[in-house]
């Protein structure tokens, strides 16, 4: 891609995210979201493959519709209450509209249909940006308006997201689509707790971003995009393969890895709020996701192709892995003992 266009896209991504996160007025929040949407479109369609172009069009349509819903909700609220403050959203129509608009932006069920195809059509680094950084402004808006959202709608969308994220990920062989469904499932966990304890939503989002960044960077270093490639990746970098297994299990939420912390705290808080049925249901539905994470971990590490024993690791590695993967991998597997520090810092 043209370096100048890449620079403008990258700068606008940073600018749009910063504008939305630091805004008090609905207009600035909406402007930041629109700048983000516009800036990432050329990055998605960078490879000029028909699938990539279709992905960019789908992304643009869904995000533009969601942004206009955010604008409508803020305008209805401004008409009836006379002010544009993000934290003072009181009109019931606005609250309902905003809940649905943020669900569309994030990819919560039933507005999740665009997400797997958009991730599949983009390159691995663009998919990383889509899963982590592009979720940051809508989560910020969700946090700022957490007291104004509709609890019934949020809880039902969250449980449906955990269900569909787990179920629909079961039949996938392309890893970007699997990670899209994992993202939908994690968003369900984030959405279910936001009314009771918004800080736990933030903890879940930060830890999920860190683990997903690790996975995408690892996949980018070993050029893995589907399960068949994953089965032979142990010959390229055996150590990275082993840590990929640990990171996948951390995403699944298995103790004693880091990914267990958000799920544990969320179940704890839900039970304290007498939402035991919701906690049980969402935990059971996460077991579906656990199956495909385990399958991925199995294919990454435990399967050996029928090679001879003197044909083990390849002698030549194309791309040396950077230090970021090492740091992120350690953090995404070993942060559970530091949970009191995490809770008090975030």
């Amino acid at each position, binding site marked *: 891609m*043209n370096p100048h*266009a890449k620079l403008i896209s990258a700068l606008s991504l940073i600018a749009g995210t910063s504008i939305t996160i630091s805004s008090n007025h609905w207009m*600035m929040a909406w*402007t930041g979201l*629109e*700048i983000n949407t*516009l800036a990432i479109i050329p990055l998605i369609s960078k490879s*000029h493959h028909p699938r990539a*172009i279709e992905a960019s069009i789908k992304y643009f349509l869904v995000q533009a519709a969601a942004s206009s819903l955010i604008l409508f909700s803020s305008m209805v609220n401004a008409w009836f209450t006379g002010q544009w403050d993000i934290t003072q959203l009181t009109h019931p129509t606005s609250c309902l509209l905003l809940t649905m608009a943020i669900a569309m932006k994030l990819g919560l069920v039933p507005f999740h249909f665009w997400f797997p195809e958009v991730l599949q059509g983009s390159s691995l680094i663009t998919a990383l940006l889509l899963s982590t950084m592009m979720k940051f402004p809508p989560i910020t808006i969700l946090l700022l308006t957490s007291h104004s959202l509709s609890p019934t709608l949020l809880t039902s969308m969250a449980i449906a997201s955990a269900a569909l994220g787990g179920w629909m990920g079961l039949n996938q062989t392309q890893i970007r689509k699997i990670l899209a469904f994992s993202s939908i499932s994690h968003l369900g966990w984030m959405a279910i707790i936001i009314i009771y304890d918004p800080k736990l939503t933030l903890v879940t989002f930060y830890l999920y971003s860190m683990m997903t960044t690790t996975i995408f960077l690892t996949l980018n270093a070993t050029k893995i995009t589907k399960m068949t490639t994953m089965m032979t990746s142990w010959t390229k970098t055996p150590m990275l393969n082993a840590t990929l297994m640990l990171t996948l299990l951390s995403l699944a939420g298995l103790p004693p890895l880091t990914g267990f912390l958000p799920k544990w705290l969320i179940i704890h808080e839900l039970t304290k709020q007498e939402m035991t049925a919701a906690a049980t249901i969402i935990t059971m539905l996460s077991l579906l996701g656990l199956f495909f994470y385990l399958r991925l971990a199995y294919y990454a590490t435990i399967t050996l192709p029928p090679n001879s024993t003197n044909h083990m690791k390849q002698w030549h590695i194309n791309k040396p892995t950077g230090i970021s993967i090492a740091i992120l991998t350690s953090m995404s597997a070993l942060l559970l003992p530091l949970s009191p520090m995490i809770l008090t810092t975030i």
Partner: protein
Amino acid sequence: MTYFVLFLGLCFVLGSLAVASNPSPYYGVVGLVLASVAGCGWLLSLGISFISLVLFMVYLGGMLVVFVYSVSLAADPFPQAWGDWRVVGYGAGFSLVLIVGAAVGGAVECWKLGVVSVDGGGVFSVRLDFSGVAVLYSEGVGMFLVAGWGLLLTLFVVLELVRGLSRGAIRAV
């Protein structure tokens, strides 16, 4: 006067119905013109004449002109007009949605006409909309810069998407 403003609202809805029933763009643009003229009239009825003229200028003089140029480049050999069965079907479906929505939403009782739009404070001396534009350039300069960057970014994104003629993402014929 009330009935006239209601009629303008009806024209707006009919114009958007004409666009949404998916005829060929040559015929859909008629709906766009009707909707924008009715929208300008509605803004006039609220009292903000400057904003109404800005909408007229930007929409009809800017967007519609660009639309006409791009449609003339990508011409349709067999355009679907209003009499096409597909268009009639879409139009009937959307009309049904409109009627049900108006009945459920209680369009008649909550229609408050003549309500002054929301105000920012006591800084405006003459007219609401005109002084609002002045505020955009003075105290609201942050928003102005951000909006300007957004529009410039749109230009760069579109240029990047159609770059490369037939090898581009969206083919620049």
